C-alpha cells in the first residue's frame, strides 16, 4: 500500500561519506556531544567550516552558492554529522527547509540575497509557524500582516520558535486576509529579520534547562513589501510543500543514537543474552528506518513530494528514537555502577530529557498518524 522502494546510495554519496568522516576526525575536540539531536548544538564556527566544505545547500544551483549535488549526497552528509553528535543546529533549518522554500517560491532578488550566505554557513533561519493558540491546527494562526503602502505591518505572537534568539531570520506564516470559509486561504509567508525588524524575542527554558525555543512578539513590526515569499495568499500550499523535506530525514530517528553507541561501549564485547538481543533489536530497527529514509530521499531526488511516506518515516523514526533510551536502560542499569559508565549515564540522561520533543516538533505523532491514515484512504 505505502511502498518504500529499494534505493542504493550511489558511489558519489559513499565518496562524500568518506570525506565527511575524515573531516569529523579532525574535529574531535568538539565531538561527540552526548546528544545527537539536530536541534541541540548551535555552533556558528562549525557551521562555517561545513559551508567551506560545500556541505550546506548541497542540492541547490551553483548560481546561488549551491553544489548541484544529489539528495543522496546531502543525505549522507546529514546522517554522518548527526551520528557523530556534531553541533549542526545553527544552519540546519536554513539548509533543510528555508533555503529549498526560497528556491522554489522566492523572488530572484531573494534567492540572490539570502541563499549564498546560507551555503557559507553564515546565515541561519527559524521556522515561524506555531503560536499560543495554534499548534497542530496550524491553519488557525492569528498573527496578521497588513499591507500599508509598500510595507507589511505585523501583529501577533509566534511561539516555540527554535533558536530565534540565535538565528538571523524567521519565515513566518501569517494571515494576510481575514479568515474565510476556506481556512487555508489568506495565509502568506514573510521573511523576518530577527535582529533588525523590532520583533521581541524571549527565550523559554525547556525541561532540560536549556534555552532553545522562544516566544517572538510582533507589535506593529513593519517590514518592506518584498519580504513576502511567493504569492500573497499562497502560504498554506508553500508551508505544506516543506513537509516532505522536514519530516523524512535522518534527524527523525538519530536523535538518541549516541545512547546506542554508549550502550554498546558499556556492555563490552561479552554482552549477556538480553544485552545482545537489545542491541540486535535496536540495530534491526535503525537499519530498516535508515533504508526507508533513503528511499524517501530517492523520491525527493526524482522530483516527487512524498508527504505521506515522509510522515510514515517520521512517525516510526520518532517512536524508535524515543524508545531507545528505555531499551538501553532495560538491559544496562543507568546508575553508575562501574568504571567507564559515567559517559553512558551522561548520554542517557541528556538524551532522555530530550525525548518528549521528538513526537511533538515538526508535527506530532497524532498528526503524523492522521497523514498516514489519509494516505491509506481512511479520511
Amino acid at each position: 500500500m505505502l511502498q518504500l522502494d529499494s534505493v542504493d546510495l550511489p558511489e558519489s554519496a559513499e565518496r562524500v561519506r568518506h570525506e565527511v568522516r575524515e573531516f569529523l576526525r579532525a574535529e574531535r575536540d568538539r565531538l561527540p556531544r552526548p546528544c545527537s539531536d539536530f536541534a541541540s548544538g548551535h555552533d556558528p564556527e562549525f557551521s562555517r567550516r561545513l559551508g567551506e566544505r560545500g556541505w550546506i545547500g548541497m542540492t541547490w544551483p551553483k548560481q546561488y552558492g549551491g553544489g548541484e549535488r544529489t539528495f543522496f549526497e546531502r543525505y549522507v552528509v546529514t546522517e554522518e554529522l548527526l551520528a557523530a553528535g556534531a553541533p549542526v543546529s545553527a544552519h540546519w533549518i536554513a539548509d533543510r527547509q528555508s533555503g529549498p522554500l526560497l528556491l522554489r517560491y522566492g523572488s530572484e532578488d531573494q534567492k540572490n540575497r539570502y541563499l549564498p550566505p546560507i551555503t557559507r554557513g553564515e546565515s541561519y533561519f527559524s521556522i515561524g509557524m506555531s503560536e499560543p493558540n495554534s499548534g497542530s491546527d496550524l491553519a488557525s494562526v492569528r498573527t496578521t500582516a497588513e499591507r500599508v503602502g509598500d510595507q507589511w505591518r505585523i501583529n501577533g505572537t509566534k511561539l516555540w520558535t527554535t533558536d530565534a534568539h540565535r538565528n538571523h531570520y524567521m519565515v513566518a506564516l501569517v494571515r494576510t486576509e481575514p479568515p474565510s470559509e476556506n481556512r487555508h486561504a489568506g495565509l502568506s509567508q514573510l521573511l523576518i529579520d530577527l535582529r533588525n525588524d523590532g520583533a521581541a524575542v524571549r527565550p523559554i527554558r525547556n525541561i532540560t534547562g536549556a534555552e532553545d525555543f522562544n516566544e517572538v512578539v510582533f507589535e506593529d513590526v513593519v517590514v518592506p513589501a518584498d519580504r513576502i515569499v511567493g504569492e500573497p495568499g499562497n502560504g498554506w500550499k508553500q508551508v505544506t510543500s516543506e513537509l516532505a523535506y522536514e519530516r523524512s530525514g535522518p534527524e527523525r530517528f538519530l536523535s538518541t543514537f549516541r545512547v546506542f553507541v554508549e550502550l554498546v561501549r558499556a556492555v563490552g564485547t561479552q554482552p549477556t543474552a538480553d544485552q545482545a538481543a537489545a542491541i540486535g533489536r535496536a540495530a534491526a530497527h535503525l537499519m530498516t528506518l535508515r533504508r526507508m529514509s533513503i528511499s524517501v530521499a530517492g523520491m525527493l531526488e526524482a522530483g516527487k513530494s512524498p508527504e505521506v511516506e515522509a510522515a510514515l518515516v517520521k512517525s516510526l523514526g520518532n517512536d524508535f528514537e524515543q524508545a531507545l533510551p528505555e531499551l538501553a536502560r532495560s538491559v544496562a542499569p543507568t546508575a553508575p555502577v562501574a568504571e567507564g559508565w559515567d559517559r553512558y549515564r551522561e548520554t542517557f540522561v541528556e538524551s532522555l530529557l530530550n525525548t518528549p520533543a521528538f513526537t511533538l516538533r515538526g508535527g506530532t505523532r497524532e498528526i503524523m498518524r492522521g497523514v498516514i491514515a489519509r494516505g491509506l484512504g481512511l479520511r
Partner: protein
Amino acid sequence: MDTRKLLLESAERIFADHCDKERLESAEGGAFPEKLWGQIEENGLHMLAMPESGAELGDAFALVQLGGRHAAPIPLLEVTLANRWTGDAGRFVSLGVVSGERIVDIAWGRRADAAIGIEPGGEALLVEVDADIEHRVNPSGEARDSIEIRQPRTLDIEDPAWELFALGRTAAIAGCLGRVLELSVQYVNERQQFGRPLAKFQAIQHSLAIMAAEVAAASRAAGSAIDMLGTANPERFALEVGVAKARVGEACGIVAPIAHQVHGAIGFTHEHQLHHFTRRLWSWRDEAGSERYWQERVGRHVAGLGAERLWEFVTAPNSLRS
C-alpha cells in the same frame, strides 16, 4: 527486473485462482493442494532457484513473498531451496530443521520423497522419507512433519542454508503482513457503526497508521535482505538476514493484534479469512529463528565490533554485493 515483474504477474493469477478460503481450509484439513502445486510445477515456479533456470535468485524470494500474500498452502520455499541443493526437481524434496535425532518442521513432509534437515548455522542433511513420518502442524495448520534421521547424506553445498531459509520466511511474512493491512483497510471502510464507517473514527485511523508503518518497515527490511543475495560477504549476508527476520518478526506481533481488534468478533470466527493470515504470521515469526534468536546473533556481532564501529556497521554499503 522486468522479467521478475512478468513472473509475479502470472504467479499472482495462479495464487488468486487457487488460494481461496475453501482451499486454504482443505489444505489445513490435511489434503495437499495438488491442483495448485500442479500449476507451480507446470510453470517451473519451483525451479527458480536452480542455476539452470536462468532466473535471479531474488526472483525466487519475490515469488515466496507473493505466496505469503496469498497464504499459499504449499511448501514453495522449501521445495525451491531443496531443488537448488539437490539439483533434481524431479523428486519432491522438502525442508525441515535438525533437532537432536530428528528432522522436525518439515513442510508437507508426508507428501515428500525426501527431506533436507538444516542445522541452524550448520550442515544440511538429506534423508529419505518413509511411512514412519509423523504428521504435525504448526499453529496455522500447515503441515510440519517430523522424521527420524536415518542414513543421512550430508549435502555438499556452498549456500548458507539456514540463512536462505530464514530469508524465505522473512519474505513470506512481509507478503502476508501486506495482505493483513489490505484486509483491515477494506473492512474498516465497509463496516458501519454509529452511522458511519469505522474508518472515520480517529482511534481506528491511528491503529491502521501504526499497522501501515510496521508493514512498510517489514517490506523494506525483507526487500533489502533480498537485495543482499549474492553479496561477496557471507557474514554480512547472514547479519542482513538476521536484521530483516528480527524486524518482520516484531511487526507480526504488532500487526496481527491490531487487525483482529479492528475486525471485531467476526475476525475471530473460523468462517472469516483473517485468521489464515494472522495465524501464519504467528507461526512464521517463530520458524527459521525467532526475532529473539536473530537479535542476539546480530547483537553479539555488533558488541564484538565495539562502540566505535557501530555506525560503520549500520551504514555498510550494499555495494558489498559482488
